[in-house]
């Protein structure tokens, strides 16, 4: 036994060396795939070294989206929009014609051609950070963007702040992203749960009256919580009462045990603070439970889904008919900017973009515009150019990134699910009830506690 043991020991050293050599060789071969290292550079010209700096006549963007997992469809749409944005930045087209005021030339940014690398966030904050680190270190990206969940967005914002590379959030709706977890190096164009509540409250009162009792089912994670709090606040402001709230675990697929208490209560409105698969399941089951035909206190019961997305609307099928919610943007909007984007997107891909795609596209363009205005890629200067700056032509009305929390303010939409007979295509799922003007939504900078942190060039 001991003899054998000894032999194994001597073997393990030799095998270790041999295997090590073999693996190294193998990996070197793998390197011939054309992904040679791009050196991380923090070259300073007039500025002290900080973050990344473009090398040569090209500048690299990093698009970090979910390519696998539950939100991969959303990620794919974001990626299409990013590619389109890069194409337009280099060759003109799309919103470049409608952006006002615009410093974009359609010939790259500051004379440099825009290229990009992509990564897979797997809708997992850890994987997202890992992927983003690779972009920052290996590929030397000057800006990165993406994400289809608030957790990944928040995780990447902290990394952006640490690495001093600007992150343009994509689809993230939690109040925390530009609230508690706001960062100097993170910017959000997408709206948030608080704005959803503000926009939805008056419409709900108008449609369903001011004497309602709401029952909430809320996905038990940070986005769900902020959504619930905002909805509660703004429906109660309209005179509604909040009957009860149940936190449902994120992984729930069968909601019957949570829907039964709703049936046993006095509530006449069901608010589903759910997203993605959660919402598809809870809404479908609520309809199966006969919630929409139910009469309580002499009123017909109503269901509300505060945040809509095309993916969810598709998943829930016919059940969305007449159900109110909010949306950041819709491809049927008639303003010049939206139409310019939709036209070029449809020309390239053959179908209209989603709201996630719109945000991805706009974020990329507005970053590029800020660089042109700043006249440099130096991140602190670009951040200052983005802060408190208003543009129009990228959607309905004007857009402003507020300097105090990096949240963009613009018109948002209250939407209603369309009846199957009213749809003109498989993408035509939501009807705009009201375009809520920017003036009607908003809050004070210090409403949510949070600190942006340093620019990085303070002395």
């Amino acid at each position: 036994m001991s003899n054998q043991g000894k032999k194994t020991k001597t073997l393990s050293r030799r095998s270790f060396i041999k295997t090590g050599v073999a693996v190294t060789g193998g990996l070197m071969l793998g390197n011939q795939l054309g992904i040679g290292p791009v050196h991380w550079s923090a070259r300073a010209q007039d500025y002290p070294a900080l973050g990344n700096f473009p090398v040569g006549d090209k500048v690299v963007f990093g698009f970090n989206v979910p390519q696998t997992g539950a939100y991969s469809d959303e990620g794919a749409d974001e990626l299409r929009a990013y590619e389109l944005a890069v194409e337009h930045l280099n060759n003109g087209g799309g919103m470049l014609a409608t952006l006002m005021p615009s410093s974009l030339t359609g010939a790259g940014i500051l004379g440099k051609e825009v290229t990009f690398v992509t990564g897979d966030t797997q809708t997992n904050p850890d994987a997202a950070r890992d992927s983003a680190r690779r972009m920052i270190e290996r590929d030397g990206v000057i800006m990165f963007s993406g994400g289809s969940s608030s957790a990944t967005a928040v995780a990447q914002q902290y990394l952006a702040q640490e690495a001093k590379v600007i992150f343009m959030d994509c689809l993230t709706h939690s109040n925390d992203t530009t609230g508690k977890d706001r960062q100097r190096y993170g910017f959000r164009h997408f709206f948030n749960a608080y704005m959803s509540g503000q926009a939805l409250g008056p419409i709900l009162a108008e449609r369903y009256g001011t004497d309602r009792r709401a029952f909430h089912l809320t996905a038990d994670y940070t986005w769900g919580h902020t959504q619930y709090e905002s909805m509660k606040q703004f429906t109660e402001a309209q005179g509604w009462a909040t009957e009860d709230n149940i936190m449902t675990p994120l992984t729930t697929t069968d909601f019957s045990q949570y829907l039964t208490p709703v049936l046993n209560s006095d509530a006449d409105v069901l608010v589903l603070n759910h997203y993605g698969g959660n919402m598809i399941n809870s809404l479908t089951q609520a309809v199966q439970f006969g919630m929409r035909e139910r009469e309580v206190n002499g009123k017909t019961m109503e269901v509300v889904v505060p945040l809509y997305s095309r993916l969810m609307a598709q998943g829930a099928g016919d059940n969305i008919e007449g159900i109110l919610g909010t949306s950041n943007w819709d491809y049927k909007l008639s303003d010049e900017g939206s139409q310019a984007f939709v036209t070029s997107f449809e020309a390239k891909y053959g179908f209209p973009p989603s709201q996630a795609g719109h945000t991805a596209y706009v974020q990329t363009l507005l970053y590029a515009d800020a660089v042109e205005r700043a006249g440099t890629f130096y991140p602190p200067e670009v951040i200052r150019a983005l802060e408190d700056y208003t543009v129009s032509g990228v959607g309905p009305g004007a857009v402003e990134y507020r300097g105090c929390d990096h949240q963009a303010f613009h018109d948002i939409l209250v939407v209603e699910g369309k009846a199957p007979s009213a749809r003109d295509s498989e993408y035509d799922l939501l009807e705009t009830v009201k375009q809520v003007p920017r003036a009607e939504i908003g809050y004070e900078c210090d409403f949510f506690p949070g600190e942006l942190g340093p620019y990085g060039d303070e002395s």
Partner: protein
Amino acid sequence: MKKQSLFARDSIYMLIAAIVIFSLRWTLPLLGGYSELATRMLIFSILVLGFDILVGLTGYLSFGHAAFWGIGAYICGYILLHFTQNILVAMILGVLIVSIIAFLLGIITLRRHGIYFAILTLAFAEMFYYLALAPLQKWTGGDNGLTGIKTPQLFGLELSGLAMYIFVGIWTLIALYTARRIKNSPYGLMLRAIKSNEERLTFTGINVFRYKVMAFLISGIFAGLAGTLFAAYETYVPTESLHWTLSGEIVIMSVIGGFGTLIGPMMGAAIVLYLENVLSAITDQWNLILGVIFMSFVIFLPGGVMSLSKQLRRLFSRDQVPANRTESQGGD
């Protein structure tokens, strides 16, 4: 065997390991990776090293190692966030709490074998995951994870980038040396005896349960240590660090590297992280490629990368090697 030769062999082994560990940061960028990935690889290699002591040596396949890693990470992160930036305090407390939990879990789960043991550990790990996700989210940050952790310090030195890498590298060396000493000690022999025939060992009058709990505890300590390093390196703790997918990933890493060889799983960790990170940048089908690689290993090279060199040597050498003991795997 003579004491001196053992010592000499150990020092050569450790020297080579040290060279590989401390050069990774500079060799990786040449291979299409990036330097920080090296730190990540080393942290994961500590994790799988501990896993190998339990699975490779003792033969108990745990599907809940994410629990130790995650708890270590959360405790370390929480201390760094709220109490002190001193990394050693955070690490010691993290490892201490993990070892208590590992001890208790070991006592409960090790009463079962094979698949039942695996499922029990999985169930406990999932329990911790859901605890972190919802009931404890006031402390864990819930779904957003533990954010805003400040850069940890070691006696006033900020640990990030190169400094963090060296710090992690030293721990990896310590972990490897410790694991190797355990493996080659009579204690390790006892663990391997448990793997080959637990019943026979019981009949010889040995308290097998005690050895198993110790192996589980040691394994948990390694995982906890790696978890604390992970929190300090990332300055962020995601809830995914407690998720069962991580436990699964650890198994994949170990299979690709080769169970029971210590250095094999470490290489497996590096290979999987490399593929995951570099492949995902090239194609969105990287999961598929990783799956095919994993299956090929299970089918053609059950002993992992380590047995590859043995197979090759068998081809080149007349001196026939006895059948590889690490090759036969699985829960019998």
